């Protein structure tokens, strides 16, 4: 028999109050996700935000999709046929797709999204990815033809990439783009129920979804920007799954009962962006700098060995990657190359280097390690920390130093979006201004034949590394921690899709 004393009553009350303070565990038909950033706008065409892609893909649909291995697959578009000159693209759409308000999705919505909105002057980022589109001819509710002013071989890829989500023409014209962003509707597997900026997003299953029905009825996305708080949230069970936790925490959380912690390579590359002038004008110094970097050691030290060393701008398995080409770690060769240009340990080559601190995991530590590696062969680098926002200003003004540590994500894996953007002197990402290589890169954008296109990018990738114009370092990794009983489909580009989640 239990004796009710004042003390044990108080204890019971205290424990009861505290236990009651915790949110109830997610029901079997729901999941709570700890996500590192918020959606910038619910107009999915408006901003290219890689972090929001997984959330957008729950509410909206893209014309084409990528499977878990990143292969382009049909989605709202069932068939696509690029003309041999890559100046037009014939499309066929599903006829059973409904927006969340019950209206039917047709080719007219596709035209509105990818042509009419841009012509109407809506401030949407897809204006840049669809800049070659001169018209979209609607042949029937399920057929359309895209027309381009110049070869546009990567448009199908872009139809499954950032910002390319079909929005409802009739609804948006009725309520205005601003109102749409406050109360959006898509054709996706979930409907948006609630969004509180910088706090949480609540989604509910769209039971009229045309595709496979999601297993979970309700998805709550808690926006937790602080990495330590995300770790604590998953460890305490306040969220069921989270991502982008510090690498060192993955090892620790792996040992926790009931949790699974994964460290998987994704389509993001960590690179050194280089100039073609100043201290890096001499290719011997650039190549010496590249040969002096022990990428495997960087991976071991900062990514528990999970980040794969890369030799070209791309990731293993992507079409532009060269599996049989390796740019080796060879400090002796570095010294010889430097000696050819009159430098040695006693008379080091002097360069400047920039890195962000905290923009991606261990960025500044990697930069410091590289500076030490260079020092051992006769390159003295002055390391400067820059803010991510300052990177753009410096790059625009052609003021980046000889080497800048940077990370670049490309969920499609297409080589144009790696090499084309990182080495095109006309685009804002390239500090490499030499037009010998630059013109080849620009010309490669217009190659229509798919085989020739991929072959061309592969050749350019090799040339960029061999001439010291590019210094790819590592394939970056993504960290995911989840409850053991929560299953989901892992994607090679890091997407974490609620519609693939289920409780085991």
């Amino acid at each position, binding site marked *: 028999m239990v004796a009710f004393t004042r003390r044990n009553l108080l204890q019971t009350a205290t424990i009861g109050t505290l236990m009651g303070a915790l*949110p109830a565990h997610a029901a079997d038909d729901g999941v709570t996700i700890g996500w590192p950033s918020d959606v910038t706008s619910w107009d999915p065409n408006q901003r290219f935000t890689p972090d929001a892609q997984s959330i957008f893909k729950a509410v909206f649909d893209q014309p084409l999709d990528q499977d878990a291995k990143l292969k382009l697959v049909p989605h709202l578009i069932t068939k696509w046929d690029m003309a041999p000159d890559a100046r037009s693209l014939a499309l066929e759409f599903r006829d059973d797709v409904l927006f969340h308000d019950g209206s039917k999705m047709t080719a007219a919505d596709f035209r509105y999204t990818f042509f009419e909105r841009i012509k109407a002057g809506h401030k949407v980022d897809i204006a840049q990815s669809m800049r070659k589109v001169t018209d979209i001819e609607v042949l029937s509710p399920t057929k359309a033809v895209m027309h381009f002013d110049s070869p546009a071989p990567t448009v199908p890829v872009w139809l499954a990439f950032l910002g390319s989500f079909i929005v409802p023409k009739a609804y948006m014209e009725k309520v205005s783009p601003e109102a749409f962003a406050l109360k959006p509707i898509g054709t996706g597997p979930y409907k948006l*129920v609630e969004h509180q*900026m910088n706090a*949480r997003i609540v989604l509910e299953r769209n039971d009229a979804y045309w595709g496979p029905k999601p297993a979970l009825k309700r998805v709550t996305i808690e*926006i937790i920007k602080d990495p330590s708080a995300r770790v604590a949230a998953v460890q305490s069970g306040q969220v069921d799954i989270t991502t982008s936790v510090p690498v060192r925490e993955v090892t620790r959380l792996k040992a926790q009962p009931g949790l699974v912690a994964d460290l998987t390579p994704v389509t993001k590359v960590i690179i050194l962006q280089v100039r073609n002038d100043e201290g890096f004008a001499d290719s011997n110094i650039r190549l010496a700098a590249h040969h002096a970097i022990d990428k495997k050691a960087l991976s071991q030290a900062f990514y528990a060995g999970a980040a794969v060393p890369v030799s070209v701008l791309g990731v293993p398995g992507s079409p532009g990657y060269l599996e049989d080409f390796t740019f080796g770690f060879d400090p002796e060769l570095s010294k010889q190359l430097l000696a050819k240009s009159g430098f040695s340990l006693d008379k080091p080559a002097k360069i400047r280097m920039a890195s962000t601190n905290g923009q991606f995991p261990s960025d500044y530590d990697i930069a410091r390690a590289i500076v030490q590696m260079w020092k051992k062969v006769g390159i003295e680098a002055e390391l400067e920390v820059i803010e991510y*926002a300052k990177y753009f200003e410096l790059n*625009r003004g052609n003021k980046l130093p000889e080497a800048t540590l940077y990370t670049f994500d490309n969920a499609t894996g297409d080589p144009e979006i790696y090499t084309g953007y990182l080495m095109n002197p006309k685009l804002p990402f390239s500090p490499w201004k030499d037009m010998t290589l630059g013109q080849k890169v620009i010309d490669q954008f217009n190659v229509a034949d798919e085989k020739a296109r991929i072959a061309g990018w592969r050749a350019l990738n090799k040339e960029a590394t061999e001439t010291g114009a590019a210094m790819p370092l590592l394939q970056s990794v993504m960290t995911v921690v989840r409850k053991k009983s929560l299953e989901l489909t892992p994607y090679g580009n890091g997407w974490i899709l609620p519609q693939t989640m289920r409780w085991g």
Partner: protein
Amino acid sequence: MILLGTLGRRLLAAVPILFVVSLLLFVALRVLPVDPAAMSMPPNATRDEIEAARRDMGLDRPLVEQYGVWFDHAVRGDFGRSIHLRRPAAGLVGETLPSTIELATAAMLVASVLGLAGGLLLFALRDRPAETIAETGTTLLMSVPEFLWALLFIFVFGVALQAMPFTGRLDPGLQRPMVTGFLLLDAVLTLRFDVLRSALVHLVLPAIALGLAFAPPIMRVLRASLLDTYHEDYIRQARLRGISETRILLRHALKNAILPTLTLMGVQFGFLFGGSLLVEVIYSYPGMGNLMVDAVRNADLPIIQLVGLTYCVVVLTINSLVDGLYLVLNPRLRAR
């Protein structure tokens, strides 16, 4: 009348201060080595497109002209659009300000209760061996910054004890009612006591983490002020009249000693708003601090400018209110 007059004068004096602050903020933000135009464009935008965006945003015009345009729009209530979120800055700040006010008020409540109680305790322990221990305790409280308290509480109450929620403002299953934007008030107005309970529980850790660091100065000022007051003749006379020590402390000394403490609390409330930045990020609290951190990261100048001005308005308003309260509490000031 005197009170209203003083408040009116204070608020009038705030106008030129606001003008100067807006000018300083504007100039400081424009000379920062960041490129808002590039930040506003997608990664595949060409240099020409970025230049066009710069012209659209007026960033190619002389600084004086830029400020003139901004000021002209601002006096009409248009504070520009967020570069990153592409929504009106005023709407975004208006959406997040209520949460920060609720957090800062709760934190101020924590700081005040702890500060006043601690101040009285420190005073009671004067000239005793325990005084040193208590003073060391206040130093310790003061030396731990709010973000460290925040992380520590998450570890202790969230992870180790698993007793308190530490993300967001509500449990996953609850939907927030929307009337005024103040969640606690809205929960009461809509009689959603489940929401009220959840919101209060979610407020506990961030409010204590934020308020804790601000309590020790209140303790110390109150203690020092009480020590000074106890040298006054009327305290001695009260003792001679046989009034109990507790009554002397609470009814006589505290009344006068609280005035400098009140000034400090006003200043602290202003600092509390600034201090909420990191606490809001750590607790995923949807307030203005969280908005500001994102804005700084994305070089979102219109948001930084407006949040900066809002902080200034809040501090000026609090100072005016404290001055008003001073008049209410101190009749001698009203006579002047």
